[in-house]
């Protein structure tokens, strides 16, 4: 008899779970209840309600999460959920209508095979990430020219002494070919696509790249500025330091936008969220705090083809 009860219980549970599933899909009704619960809050934005689901780039995720949390505090009727999954997943899901916002490190047109689907997506550039070439501090190199970098990453130069460093074989710590960081580095630092060299190391994550460059003698890799510290040596690019100021002024070229894509024009709630992202409060606050460069501070703009305008 006990087992029968157990059975009944599981069936009920299964039913409850499936009910909850339906409830979850009906996001608006769900958050409407929340709005009622917290309606005592601010009145100027009380009209906003609904839920925003964002997924994609793991690099952008902490920022969206933090801003989303602040946005929810300001608009109690809104729920912002942020999922990871990578740029590819974000674009897949926003294009498929499963999420409202797809976070991506690259332009959608570079990733998506289906040009028509890519065209439907509206780009919102919320921040800028700059990437610096980093080397193991022991190699004794502080600056590399564009040509030297190209020669290193294409395997023409294999020893640091060829670029005025010490006699030490070069170990390349690259990113996989699908990585957005690699695409940015190749496009703006090298100006050319590179092949994967035999014996080179490939890691997708900044933390692992940093660890390997720190530990491996003769290693070279590239990292977003936010990951830099004294364990690795960021080298100058054509004599220009990889600093925020140089990026903002348009002197240091190795940077890319962080994109938040919506399918078509966003609905009111999503638009309010994206607008909030561009306010000075967020741009000069959270964006800077998390190591990105504010998009609205940039003195130069760049389009998909890489053309820079002041």
């Amino acid at each position, binding site marked *: 008899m006990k087992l029968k009860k157990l059975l009944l219980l599981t069936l009920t549970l299964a039913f409850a779970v499936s009910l909850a599933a339906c409830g979850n899909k009906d996001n608006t009704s769900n958050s409407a209840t*929340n709005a009622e619960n917290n309606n005592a809050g601010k009145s100027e934005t009380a009209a906003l309600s609904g839920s925003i*689901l964002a997924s994609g780039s793991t690099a952008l995720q*902490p920022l969206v999460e933090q801003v989303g949390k602040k946005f929810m505090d300001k608009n109690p009727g809104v729920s912002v*959920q*942020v999922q*990871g999954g990578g740029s590819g997943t974000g674009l897949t899901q926003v294009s*498929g209508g499963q999420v409202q916002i797809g976070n991506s490190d690259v332009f959608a047109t570079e990733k998506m095979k289906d040009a028509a689907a890519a065209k439907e997506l509206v780009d919102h550039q919320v921040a800028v990430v700059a990437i610096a070439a980093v080397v193991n501090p022991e190699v004794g190199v502080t600056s590399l020219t564009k040509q030297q970098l190209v020669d290193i990453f294409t395997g023409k130069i294999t020893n640091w002494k060829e670029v005025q460093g010490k006699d030490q074989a070069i170990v390349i710590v690259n990113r996989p070919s699908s990585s957005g960081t690699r695409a940015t580095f190749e496009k703006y630092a090298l100006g050319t696509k590179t092949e994967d060299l035999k014996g080179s190391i490939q890691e997708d994550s900044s*933390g692992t790249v940093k660890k390997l460059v720190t530990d491996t003698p003769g290693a070279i890799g590239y990292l977003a500025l936010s990951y830099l510290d004294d364990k690795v040596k960021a080298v100058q690019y054509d004599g220009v330091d990889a600093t925020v100021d140089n990026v903002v002024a348009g002197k240091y070229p190795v940077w890319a936008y962080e994109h938040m894509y919506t399918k078509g024009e966003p609905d009111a709630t999503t638009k309010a969220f994206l607008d909030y992202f561009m306010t000075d409060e967020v741009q000069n606050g959270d964006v800077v705090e*998390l*190591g990105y460069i504010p998009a609205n501070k940039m003195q130069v703009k760049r389009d998909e083809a890489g053309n820079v305008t002041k």
Partner: protein
Amino acid sequence: MKPKAADKLATGIIVFFALLIVAVLVGMLGFILFRGLSHISWDFLTSGPQTIREGGGIGPQLFNSLYLLILTMIITIPLGLGAGIYMAEYAKPNKLTDAIRLIVEVLSSFPSIVVGLFGLLVVVQYFDFGFSLFSGAVVLTIFNMPLMVRVTEQAFRSVPKEQKEAGLAMGLSKWKIITSILFPVALPIIVTGTILAAGRVFGEAAALLFTAGMTTPHINFSDWNPLHHNSPLNPFRPAETLAVHIWKVNSEGLAPDAVQIAAGASAVLVLLVLIFNLLARWLGRALYRKFTSIK
């Protein structure tokens, strides 16, 4: 070489290798615990993670791991028990039964990443459950169910035939015999097996990257209504488990103490697995003693 000398040499080698294995384990455990234990504190276990500041904890991740475990077991246990009972009591020795046994074997040896990708495609994308605890639980069920089935089947088969026959003689239905005679006797083995299977939930990361996601949204630990979107109990929110968190902190961690956090989290994870192993043995033995002393 003389047989005696060869014997001594071989014995020496075998003992050496056996001790080497012990040394490797002790070394690894020592390394994990030595590096991690100093970082474990009540605050570390309960507070939320920090993105860029020092002093982040693993509270939500720990909760997610445990909650995911419970969710998985809610799905796995009834299904696994049922299928196991079928295999032990109802299945006739024919081709179909052989095929099912083969399926169980294949399912249990699928690489976790393949099952994870299946979860991504079907549960996350196709059925649109998103990166959520529920998606994770479904995928983990696929791992754990074959184990459950095997354990249940073995447990039921280990029950002495006489007990079943006694039940038949009393004119009980087969289902009645299963639930009231065989099940209690088989329970100790099932419990041990279940806990061991459950322990795997803690360690799994590859499949969960694609299904439960790598994020923990802001959860409100004072709201326990499972239907609220930021309630900890909502099964449809993304959830990063401890193992996934270690992976993420190692690979993307921006906080200055990322290394210590990974070390601390690893220590907690290993300790949890250890506790689960001990619990499984202890509970199995305790139940066994209880049931055998009654008889």
